């Protein structure tokens, strides 16, 4: 069993034991675990089969944003089991695979489909006669489609609530929490929404001590900072905190969300702070879809939140802070780290993070990248290769790495969707990680009254996210008439601190990016 019984930093509080049924087979699980974590702990790696080639797909993002873990749960199709908590007697079935995702007869497609149905042939083959086209279309329909039409109505009773608020804050991570605390303290009526059952966003997975200044909890573990900020926000009664609340759309100044998968929440706000963080970047290499290839965040969630070991020996791709910290966290969970590969000629993250793992014997291959993942239904080995100056693999430098999982930690991209919906002017800024909004120094975007803070404004440290959150929260409340000159002074003091914080070499790249978007 790959459940961690003990961990140096995190105490895993396992709930009552329950039994869930996976394709009819009973599986032991503990309340508080997601179905995905429970199946993974039971050694199940293949969660679904891909749409066209029927390749095996498994646990990947762990935050309900990809399609790899969609299954039928109690008769309801296309449910992402990484966001569903175990309940006793649950019936879980894999989809679009016969007899099951583990052993799928249609897996043959992966070998033959290129010869008979190269891409685009659904439009270009069997077109000569009407009958031929109709037969082909009927067959295509049968093969297409993922889940089956629902066999049951939802169990829960739906509900609806409409709230009018001064400030709606989307995302309860370091940025959103800071915005809610500082706006709430000025008296503004705030609604803070986060899709997880816990507040703190990324912090909850960061078991290491944080960098930055003491004033922003530096030297404290990420998970402790989450506890501190959560306590602070819950003490302010004019801040209405809604967890397990997924915001799905912004329509003008209306924020629409689904709370606890059963209540439709409509928040009409005067100001909106978008603090939805970022997604993991994926990497394109051969068999990058094999179960066992994970984003770093997915592994951190599985290991640091649900206490399930991702495997026994991992390869880490990318030596930014995330890759380096993750390697250290894997060692803490008793998981071996075969190596860290980095395409650049030098380590991407802070040197001290590299030194931490180097002195524990983890090799770091700079100027290297992953060429392919190997394995029948899950990762069994990986091939890494050396790169020349213009980033091209050098023939003959291939090395085989024994590993049973691969973590891709090659950076994050801001979650831009809601900003486009709100009508913000956006720009593609590589230094900030991707698509970010134009805004002023208080974080207000070109969409009047819509603010942005944290990684969604540009990929940076959690300390910067907290500062940006405080500034946005203060400015939004001030513009609504809350607070006095003290509040204005505090806001401008933090703006100064943020500029100071970004003045080091690591801030150079951020400043270059900000020049393109801050007006």
């Amino acid at each position, binding site marked *: 069993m790959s459940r961690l019984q003990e961990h140096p930093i995190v105490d895993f509080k396992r709930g009552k034991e329950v039994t869930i049924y996976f394709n009819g087979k009973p599986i032991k699980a503990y309340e508080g675990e997601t179905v995905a974590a429970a199946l993974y702990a039971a050694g199940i790696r293949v969660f679904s089969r891909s749409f066209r080639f029927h390749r095996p797909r498994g646990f990947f993002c762990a935050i309900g944003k990809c*399609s*790899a873990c969609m299954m039928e749960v109690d008769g309801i199709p296309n449910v992402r089991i990484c966001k569903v908590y175990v309940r006793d007697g649950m019936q879980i079935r894999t989809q679009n695979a016969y007899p099951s995702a583990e052993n799928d007869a249609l897996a043959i497609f992966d070998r033959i489909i290129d010869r008979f149905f190269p891409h685009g042939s659904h439009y270009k083959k069997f077109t000569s006669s009407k009958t031929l086209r109709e037969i082909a279309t009927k067959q295509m329909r049968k093969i297409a489609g993922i889940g089956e039409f629902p066999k049951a109505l939802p169990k829960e009773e739906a509900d609806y609530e409409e709230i009018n608020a001064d400030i709606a804050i989307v995302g309860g991570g370091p940025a959103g929490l800071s915005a809610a605390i500082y706006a709430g303290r000025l008296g503004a009526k705030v609604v803070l929404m986060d899709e997880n059952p816990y507040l703190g966003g990324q912090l909850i997975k960061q078991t290491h001590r944080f960098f930055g200044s003491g004033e922003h909890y530096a030297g404290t573990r990420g998970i402790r900072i989450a506890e501190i900020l959560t306590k602070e926000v819950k003490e302010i009664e004019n801040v209405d905190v809604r967890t397990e609340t997924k915001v799905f759309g*912004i329509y003008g100044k209306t924020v629409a969300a689904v709370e606890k998968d059963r209540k439709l929440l409509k928040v009409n706000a005067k100001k909106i702070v978008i603090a939805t963080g970022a997604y993991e970047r994926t990497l394109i290499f051969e068999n990058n879809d094999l179960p066992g290839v994970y984003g770093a965040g997915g592994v951190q969630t599985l290991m640091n939140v649900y206490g399930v070991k991702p495997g026994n020996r991992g390869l880490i791709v990318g030596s930014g802070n995330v890759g380096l910290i993750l390697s250290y966290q894997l060692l803490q969970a008793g998981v071996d780290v075969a190596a860290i590969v980095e395409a650049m000629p030098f380590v991407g993250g802070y040197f001290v993070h590299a030194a931490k793992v180097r002195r524990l014997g983890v090799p770091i291959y700079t100027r290297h990248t992953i060429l392919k993942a190997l394995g029948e239904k899950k990762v069994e080995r990986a091939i890494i290769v050396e790169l020349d100056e213009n980033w091209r693999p050098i023939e003959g430098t291939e090395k085989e790495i024994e590993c049973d999982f691969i973590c891709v930690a090659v950076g994050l991209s801001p979650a831009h969707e809601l900003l486009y919906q709100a009508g913000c002017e956006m720009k593609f800024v590589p230094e900030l990680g991707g698509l970010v909004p134009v805004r002023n120094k208080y974080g207000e975007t070109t969409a009047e009254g819509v603010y942005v803070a944290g990684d969604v404004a540009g990929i940076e440290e959690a300390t910067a996210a907290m500062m940006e959150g405080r500034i946005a929260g203060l400015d939004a409340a001030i513009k609504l008439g809350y607070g006095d000159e003290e509040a204005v002074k505090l806001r401008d003091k933090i703006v100064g601190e943020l500029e100071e914080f970004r003045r080091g070499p690591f801030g150079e790249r951020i400043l270059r990016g900000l020049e393109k978007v801050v007006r």
Partner: protein
Amino acid sequence: MKSRKIVCRCEDITEEEIIHAIEEGYDDIESLKRYTGATTGACQGKGCLMHILRILSQKTGKSPEEIGITTQRPPVNPVPLYVLAEGDKE
């Protein structure tokens, strides 16, 4: 298992197929999206939009800014109908 470089995990599109579609003339992001189906699957582009942008930029020589991205529509994540129905206050 055949060796493939998967760009769009939800619609199962390889890098080779994306490049092939661009060469066939679907060389603006909206046509490429519709012809290959990339970014239209269950994750609505969260895993592949940035790669599509990169590949298009490399193939057409245009900057990501010129290429632009597909229209970002609600909902950001799938929304249950039975919950939405509760909001119809006719």
